C-alpha cells in the first residue's frame, strides 16, 4: 500500500509548490486533537525528518512520518470543490469514525 494523489490533487499541489517557489513536496500527517481524536494535517515541506517516508504519486513527492503513516496507509488524496469552497479531501481506509464536520477521526 502507499499514499496516492488523484490527478486533480497532484496538479493542484504542483501548482501551489511552483507558486510558493520552494518545497520538496507535500507532507500528509496525523495529529492528536480535534473532536474525534485525530486530525489530518497537510503542509509544504522544506526539509525531511529522520523517520520520513517518501512516495512519488503523479509526479508529486509525498512525505509522511512513520507514526502518521501507520494511520494513513492506503489514503487517497483528492482535490474537490463543494459550492464555493475548494480544497483537499482525504479518503482514508483506516478511519473508523469521523466527527460531524469531518475534520477529525478515529482509527
Amino acid at each position, binding site marked *: 500500500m502507499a499514499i496516492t494523489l488523484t490527478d486533480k490533487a497532484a496538479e493542484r499541489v504542483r501548482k501551489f509548490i511552483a507558486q510558493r517557489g520552494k518545497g520538496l513536496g507535500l507532507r500528509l500527517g496525523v495529529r492528536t486533537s480535534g473532536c474525534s481524536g485525530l486530525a489530518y494535517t497537510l503542509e509544504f515541506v522544506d526539509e525531511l525528518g529522520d523517520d520520513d517516508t517518501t512516495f512519488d504519486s503523479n509526479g508529486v513527492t509525498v512525505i509522511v512520518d512513520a507514526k502518521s503513516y501507520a494511520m494513513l496507509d492506503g489514503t487517497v488524496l483528492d482535490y474537490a470543490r463543494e459550492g464555493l469552497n475548494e480544497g*483537499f479531501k482525504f479518503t482514508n481506509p483506516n478511519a473508523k469514525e469521523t466527527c460531524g464536520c469531518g475534520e477529525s477521526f478515529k482509527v
Partner: protein
Amino acid sequence: MALLQIAEPGLSAAPHQHRLAVGIDLGTTNSLVATVQSAMSVVLNDEDGRALLPSVVRYLPDGTTYVGYPAQAMQSADPHNTIVSVKRFMGRGVKDIPDAERMPYQFVDAPGMVQLKTVAGVKSPVEVSAEILRVLRERAEHALGGELVGAVITVPAYFDDAQRQATKDAARLAGLNVLRLLNEPTAAAVAYGLDNAAEGVYAVFDLGGGTFDISILKLSKGVFEVLATNGDSALGGDDFDQRVFCWILEQAKLPPLGPHDSRTLLTKAREAKEWLTEHPEANITALLDCGMAVDLTLTSTTFAEITQHLVSKTLQPTRKALRDAGLGPEEVKGVVMVGGSTRMPNIQKAVGDYFGQEPLNNLDPDKVVALGAAIQANVLAGNRGEDDWLLLDVIPLSLGIETMGGLVEKIIPRNSTIPVARAQEFTTYKDGQTAMSMHVVQGERELVAECRSLAKFELRGIPPMVAGAARVRVTFQVDADGLLSVTAREKSTGVETTVAVKPSYGLSDEEITRMLTESREHAKDDMAARMLRENQVEARRLLDAVQAALDEDGSLLDDRERAAIGQLMDALRAVTETGDSPTIKQALEALNRGTESFAARRMDRSVQKALSGHKLSELEVGEG
C-alpha cells in the same frame, strides 16, 4: 468531509481553529475580497463567478437592501435610494462634499458625518459601507467554510483619522474584526512582493473608474512609509469613455440625443476603449432610437490623440507628488500599476516614458490591492513562518486566559509580532452555567498563580445549557500600539463583553527577563502541575456528573449497583485532593468503567421518554 488547504511547515491549524483571514479592497466603484490559500493569494468570486462587487447599495421601503449588481441595475430608476460611491462620504461633513448639490441624495447634516435620507430611513455612510462589507464577509465565510478571524481593509493613503475610524466602524458593524487598515498603495506593493525586495522608493499609479491617485512609498526594513500622495478625485476611466463618446458624436455628426441613445453610445464607447487594449482598431456600430446609424472605426492612434490631454492630467499630480517627496523620477525603483484603467496601452506608455522603466503590470490591476491586503491579513492572522514576518514590534510575554483548575491557556504566544489577533473557543463546565469569568494573564508559566494578572471580567447572559454545549469564542487582539483587547462572545446569543488593557504597562525589562528565566527553570514542574490540575478538574467534573445522574435516575440501579458506584466515587474523591496524577487517572477510569451500564440504561430511558406519546408515523428518520 471538510476540505483542507496546505499549510506552511509546522503551521497546520488545529481542527476548528482556523485562522481564516481576508483582505478587502473597499473601493469607491467596486469592492473585492481575497484570501491566501495554500500559499497563493486569490480573489474570492461570488456564486456567478464574478470577482467585483459594485460598491452600490439600494434601500427599499420595506427595509430590504440590495448590494452590488442588483442595486447598480436600479441606479438610474431609483437614484435617491441607490447609494453609489459612498466612500466619498466616509467621515465627511456636508461642507466637505464639493458637488453635493449635483448628487441625487438628500443629505442630512449630522454632527461629525453627513447622513443620507432614504425610503428605509436615514443612513450614515458607515451603515451603507457596512452593507457592502457584510456581503463580502458572507462571501468569504461561504467560500472558506468558517468564521473569519479578521480582515485587513484597505483605505486610500490620504484618508485622515475620521475617515479611517469610519471605515473601522463600518467593518465592526458588518461583524468583521479589523486586523488593521492598510494603505491601498502599500497593499499593491505587497501584492508584488516589494516588501521582500530591495529597499528604496516605489511609485504606485492608481487610475480607477472615477479617481486617480499617485503615491510615493519608501521601503526600509520591511516597512512601507508613504512619502507623498497626490491625485485627482474626478479623473478616471469614465472620462476616457466620455471622450470617445464625444468623438462618436462629432464623427457621426449626430444631433443631441435622448437619454437611451446616450447610454447606448456610452456603452459602445467603453467597449471600444477596452477592445483597443489588445487590438489596433475597434469598430463602433449602433442603430439609434432616433433612426440614425453609427458605423465608425476607432484606431488606437486616434484614441491616443483624443485622450492625450487626459493622460497628461495624470502626469501633473505624479510630478507634484515626486516634488513633494523631494525626488526625481529616476530615483524611483519600481512603478506599480493599479486600477482597471491602467490597462490602456497609452497610459502604460506614458507612465513608462515618464519613469524611464517598464511599470509592474503582470497582476490584474483591478485585484492587486485586495491580493496584497490578503497577504497582509494572512501574516497578521499567524499563518506564516517566523522568517516571513515583517519586522515589527513583538509581544514580550505570552498572553492567555485562566481555565478551570487555575491553569493558563495561552492564546497569543510570546514573540508574536503585533498587530495580531487570535481566537479560541471555550465552553461551560457545569450544566446550566450562565456566566463565565475571564481572567486575562501574561507570562510563560502553566499556573495562573505564577503569571501576571492583567484583567478580570465576566461574560453574563449565556443561555442555560448542559456542560460543554455553550460555545464561547474568546478573541485576543493586540493592535499596532500594543493595546490588548479581549472579547468573549457566546455564539448562539451573540452576547459579548470586551475589556482593553495595555499589557506592557508597568513592566520593566528586568521583570520580563525574570519571568522568562523562571519559566525555563520550572518547565518540568509546571508540566507536572498542569497534568495534576487537569486530572483534578476532570475528576471533579465526572463526580458532579455522576452525582447528577444518580439524583435523577438513581431508581434504575439496585442497591448493590448503587453501592458499587458509591465506592468508586469515594475512592476517586479521596485521591483527587491528595493523590498524584496516575492514581487520579486510575480512579477516574475505574469510575468511568463502573458507570458504563448505568449510562446505557439512562440513555434507553431517555429515548423511551422522548418516543412515548408519539405515533410511529410522526417519527422521521434523519440522516445523522
